[in-house]
């Protein structure tokens, strides 16, 4: 498949455009996504092509329009909701947790709920405490949802297309610090499949580093730093937070015997704890050091650039942690 070098943001636009062309029952709703094409321009050109019926500006009312996605899905449509900042998922919490995630199950499996909720989150752009969260763990404990996290343009493209074709509710968590990241994307791909587990992005033999979203790039950078010091790090993108299947990570740990999980969230109640717990179960006898988690400190994100940067796990921190495990 020939690829084009495009940004993460453009990859999202391509995925939306191709899938909306492919299936006339798809439509997208969100705040300022029509004529304005989205605050992050993730809906560029969509209203011009598909019209305001299928590319719909909503009131600032996440409960209302996210809940409407359930009604649309039950009556034959494949709605996509864009949540401008992932932080606003909280406004639609009841609709997602009690409605969207459970409706198919409660009907005895008799209805389908093909819904995509795209939420753009993450720190690094100085948006302060209410506009910088990744929200990765907020819905982590909700059966009936799938949660995926693209960490580069290719994944943003392929995963979103697969999510739109999936017959289940999928929460796609995108990262605003990645929107301008460039990479090769196989634009025009016909066949796509939902990822079912983590993906190894770089092979290594001494330590396994697992991350999501922006932490994947930082883990890859850490692997470069470690390579310079003769340490071979394997880097894995967790990709799918729910249903969580850590088999790939456990198999990696069986080869490297050391594990670090990097998560852009506060230290408690996040997916990195689940990864560590499941890897302990699957690969306990292969661990040669206590698994390490690197997270944000247990505080909201600050605005001032120096403060925000200090909160985020840096490649240097990740590399230093790896070395301490190998001491």
């Amino acid at each position: 498949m020939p690829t084009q070098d495009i940004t993460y943001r453009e990859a999202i636009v391509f995925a939306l455009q191709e899938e909306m062309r492919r299936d006339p029952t798809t439509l997208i709703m969100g705040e300022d996504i029509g004529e304005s094409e989205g605050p992050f321009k993730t809906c560029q050109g969509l209203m011009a092509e598909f019209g305001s019926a299928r590319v719909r500006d909503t009131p600032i009312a996440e409960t209302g329009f996210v809940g409407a996605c359930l009604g649309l899905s039950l009556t034959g449509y494949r709605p996509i909701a864009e949540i401008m900042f992932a932080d606003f998922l909280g406004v639609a919490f009841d609709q997602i947790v009690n409605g969207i995630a459970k409706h198919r199950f409660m009907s005895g499996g008799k209805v389908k709920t093909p819904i995509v909720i795209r939420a753009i989150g993450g720190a690094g752009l100085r948006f302060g405490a209410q506009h910088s969260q990744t929200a990765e763990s907020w819905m982590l404990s909700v059966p009936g949802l799938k949660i995926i996290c693209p960490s580069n343009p290719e994944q943003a493209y392929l995963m979103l297309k697969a999510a739109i074709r999936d017959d289940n509710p999928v929460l796609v968590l995108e990262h605003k610090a990645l929107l301008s990241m460039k990479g090769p994307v196989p634009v025009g791909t016909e066949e796509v499949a939902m990822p079912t587990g983590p993906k190894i992005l770089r092979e290594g033999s001494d330590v396994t580093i697992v991350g999501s979203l922006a932490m994947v790039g930082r883990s890859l950078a850490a692997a470069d730093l470690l390579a310079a010091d003769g340490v071979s790090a394997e880097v894995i993108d967790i990709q799918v937070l729910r249903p969580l299947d850590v088999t790939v990570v456990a198999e990696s740990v069986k080869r490297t015997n050391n594990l670090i999980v990097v998560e852009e969230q506060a230290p408690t109640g996040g997916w990195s704890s689940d990864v560590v717990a499941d890897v302990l179960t699957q690969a306990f006898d292969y661990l040669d050091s206590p698994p390490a988690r690197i997270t944000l400190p247990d505080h909201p994100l600050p605005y001032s650039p120096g403060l925000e940067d200090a909160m985020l796990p840096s490649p240097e921190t990740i590399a230093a942690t790896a070395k301490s495990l190998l001491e």
Partner: protein
Amino acid sequence: MAARKKSAKPSNQVPDPLTDDDRVELFRSMVGIREFEEQVQRSYLEGLVHGTTHLCNGHEAVSSGVAQALRPDDYVSYTYRGHGHCLARGMDMEAAFAELFGRVDGVCGGIGGSMHLTDIDKGLIGAFGIVGGGLPVAVGAGLSAQLANKEQVSVSFFGDGAANIGAFHESMNIAQVWKLPVLFVCENNLYGEFTRINHTTPYEDLVIRARGYAMEAVQVDGNDVEEVYAAASIAAMRARGGGGPTFIEAKTYRHRGHSRTDPAKYRDPAEVEEWLKRDPITLYRKDLIARGLLDAKAADAIVAELQSEAKAAADRAAASEWPSADQDFMAKTFA
């Protein structure tokens, strides 16, 4: 703009006037709901119904009156007090009982339960256990109807308690700004769970709420089935023609407590007595007899017939198998 107080029966304006046969059928529909709920109460005491259940005795005229105004391809969403809405749309009594009993032949295979009866083939898109949770979903079904352009409508039943939650306001606003074919049917029974409306809401006439959204609105006697039908019929006609949503406030009363564990002792006995005198089924029975469409014997026969039908349906449902925990019920989470 039409927030009318106490509309007169607008029978001359109704797009599709009721025939005498329709009227008898409406009576049957209400009696069927009542006898179903009475049997639920008996079955609950026999231990066949699990957890809790929310009976709609007293609300029958709203369910039956609105259903009479709908087409088979319309969408209906409702609440945990939703048995009546489902039966009025033709849900099979045995499948409903089996669901309440948690059996495999239940309309949702025993997975949903009393609060979550769903039957997508009858346009019954879902019952919502969270107060107000169904309104945004009804808006989505309304958007679907608008996009499909087949003159369908989406009806959302909810109670007075829901009028105070955010989902209500967001839904009313979206439906009106997008001119969606949605009927917001508020069954104002004066009690949000255990608390009377005057403790929770600045006024008792919720039709006032619609004004804030510039929405067509009407207040009806929710215990008068023909008045409910007329209002719903006009609202549906407006919606099908692209005229947007209507808010219908149906004043009614909950004969029993909020749920099976609630004896409803917080109500003034005088208030209860007043409303029981205005039982929608008693009122309509008198009306039909007065109009010569039914005599007492025929009316009694209908009650007896539906009572035994409910009993027989419950008996058959109770004989249904339990769902097997080692079967594929967990596979129903994902498609």
